[in-house]
């Protein structure tokens, strides 16, 4: 067990770093898991910037109206570039610039506000509709009574219809599932990245020619050496799976209805085993740390992009979606693809991932044997 212990000691040496890095990426995964609850209908909130250049009751009424269901940021200084930039980068859904002469412009039926939105998004319709509605009611009241009464308009706009969720229990479950799904998707990527890089860098030290030559001339059998290495690596893999799995349960402990936890656990375990087998192939090919880091990064980021982990699958285009079907990370996401998924539904994807692991191990063994056969003292 010397090699096994040696390797675990190596991991232990970097414990602080591993914990910091794991929690850093865990934090990003938590951000991915943000979603709303779904038992009752919730009016969608938009991020709106309002530039208020007026000191007017009409402007205040508009701000109050938009603030009812949206996150509104009111500023007085108008920086057009800043507004355009925030929309360009999707930091806000739209902006409303209130003209300083809003009162006189309203009375004369002239344009009183400027809206900044992306016409390709549904948010554009919503913002336009809400601002138009405010002015339409204010104008109708003005035409009818001859006075501008924003209080009356705002009170009229408080009336509304009833919105019912068809199947609240199912919707709540679906919402809980979506949050956990995003978290697990990202957790799969983290496991791939960290295991590939961390174990890859540790293995460069174990694969240094001096150390390998000493192992070769030692009475330790190759099978025993490999088993000890794989065992130590597996402990790291299981450790990372446990942190991320129970971390996910911890942050979403009150939103786990409809979440197939058993499938998620198996999926995380399989992706960590796949990563270790892939790592076996990479380390049997090279000990160059730049190559290891580059390959680890590209494989994990590339798979995550193509499998729809960072960007929703539906915006990726058909060709990219077809390519994704051949990637292990895609099958990882399909093991827990739906709230009520059964083992028979997941079976195909579990099998494909197992096949990926076996193939990688075979390739790794071939390269490893090739390297050994070229060994000379």
């Amino acid at each position, binding site marked *: 067990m010397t090699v096994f212990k040696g390797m675990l000691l190596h991991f232990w040496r970097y414990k602080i*770093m591993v914990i910091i*890095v794991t929690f*850093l990426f865990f934090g*990003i995964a938590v*951000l*991915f898991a943000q979603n709303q609850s*779904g038992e009752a209908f919730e009016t*969608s909130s*938009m991020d709106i910037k309002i530039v208020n250049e007026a000191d007017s009751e009409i402007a205040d009424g508009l701000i109050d109206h938009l603030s009812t*269901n949206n996150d509104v940021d009111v500023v007085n200084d108008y920086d057009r*570039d800043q507004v*355009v*930039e925030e929309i*360009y*980068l*999707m*930091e806000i859904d739209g*902006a409303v610039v209130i003209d300083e002469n809003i009162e006189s412009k309203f009375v004369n039926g002239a*344009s009183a*506000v400027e*809206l*900044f*939105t*992306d016409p*390709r998004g*549904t948010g554009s*319709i*919503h913002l*336009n509709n809400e601002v*138009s509605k405010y*002015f*339409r*009611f204010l104008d*109708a009241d003005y035409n*009818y009574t001859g006075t501008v009464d924003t209080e009356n308009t705002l009170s009229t*706009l408080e*009336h*509304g*219809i*009833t*919105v019912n*969720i*068809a*199947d609240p229990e199912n919707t709540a479950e679906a919402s809980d599932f979506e949050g956990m799904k995003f978290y697990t998707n990202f957790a799969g990527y983290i496991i791939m990245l960290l295991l590939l*890089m961390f174990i890859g*860098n540790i293995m460069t*030290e174990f694969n240094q020619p001096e150390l390998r030559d000493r192992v070769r001339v030692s009475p330790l059998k190759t099978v025993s050496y490999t088993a000890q290495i794989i065992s130590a690596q597996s402990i790291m893999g299981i450790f990372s799976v446990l942190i991320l799995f129970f971390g996910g349960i911890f942050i979403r402990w009150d939103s786990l209805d409809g979440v197939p936890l058993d499938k998620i656990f198996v999926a995380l375990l399989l992706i960590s085993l796949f990563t270790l087998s892939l790592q076996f192939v990479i380390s049997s090919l090279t000990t*160059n*740390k*730049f190559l290891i*880091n*580059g390959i680890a*990064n590209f494989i994990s980021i590339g798979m*995550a*992009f193509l499998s729809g982990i*960072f960007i929703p699958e539906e*915006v990726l*285009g058909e*060709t*990219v979606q077809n390519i994704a079907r051949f990637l292990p990370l895609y099958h990882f996401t399909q093991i827990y693809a739906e709230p009520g998924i059964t083992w028979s539904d997941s079976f195909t994807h579990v099998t494909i991932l197992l096949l990926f692991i076996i193939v990688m191990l075979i390739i790794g063994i071939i390269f490893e044997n090739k390297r050994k056969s070229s060994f000379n003292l």
Partner: protein
Amino acid sequence: MGIFKMTYQMMLINFKDFGYWFWTLLYPLLLSTLFILTTSNITGDGMEDIPVGITEDHQLTVILEDVEFLEVTETTESKALTLMEDNELSGFITENNELLVTDSGLDQTILESVLNEITQMFESGIPPENFSFDNDFIVETHADREPQVVMFYSLIAMMVFYTMFSSIEFITTVQPNLSTMGARFQSSPYSKVKLLMASAVGALSLGLLTNFIIITYLMIFYQGTLFSTLLPTVILLIFGNISGIGIGFAIGLFPKINANFKTFVGLIVLLALTFSAGMIGPGVRMLVNEHLPLLNSLNPVARVTDTLFRINLMDNFDDYMMTLGILIGIAVVMFIFTLFALRRKQYDSL
């Protein structure tokens, strides 16, 4: 050995390493290609009408059919539920004028708003002839969203800090307790400042070379515009590269840790900073800006990303000098720290 020859030797060490080229050139090129392939459709092709179901012969059907962004279908509640589950309907209006949905979302919110307006008109007590749908109190300005550009800019921002890996390698190599070459340097009369400068210039030259290749690649293959002001962009990249070298020197100074692990630490930190700057999609950047706004204002990668975006796409140079100042500030502090850390060290045994 003159400083130029030393610089040449330093460059040659990295130049001959295929791993270095894979990491600093091939990896960003592959990632750029991946971004080009996957992000072309990120903002969508345009808006579609919102499909809504309504019971047959409903009094609101005529009014709703006049709303230009709605696509109204007469159907029964049970059929509507199936259609909603298949995402073919966003909502259904019942006989009692209630809205039935299977999900909360923007489409459903718009439907709610439209139905609210009809109710509000009836309940306002204002005669209908006072409502005008022709008045135009709004001027609309189209501001397109292209959040995917941030992914390209953050990739470039990450790349400029890659010079840190050359300097981590170098500074670890010259430490006598970590390498035999370091022990030889320590006992030689060669100036440490010259050594440091040669290494920095070598790393900068290689870094800039890879930067230019990747920018040229993006200019040729990316369909939109990413670089409209080349000279300020190049100056920013140079400063970013210098800053990366400084950070690498500081990381490389950690005692008793080999270069591999220092590279791993530098890489992980850089990746985390790049993710929060927006490289894995606009979503994470927005979430970080919303929940941890301080992180991206202190994050040098996010700073370079934002400045690249502003000077090239917004023609906005407001924070340009500040970013250059921060980058060069980081570099100067790190260089001074490195020089102080390396000077007058004594070892019991080499």
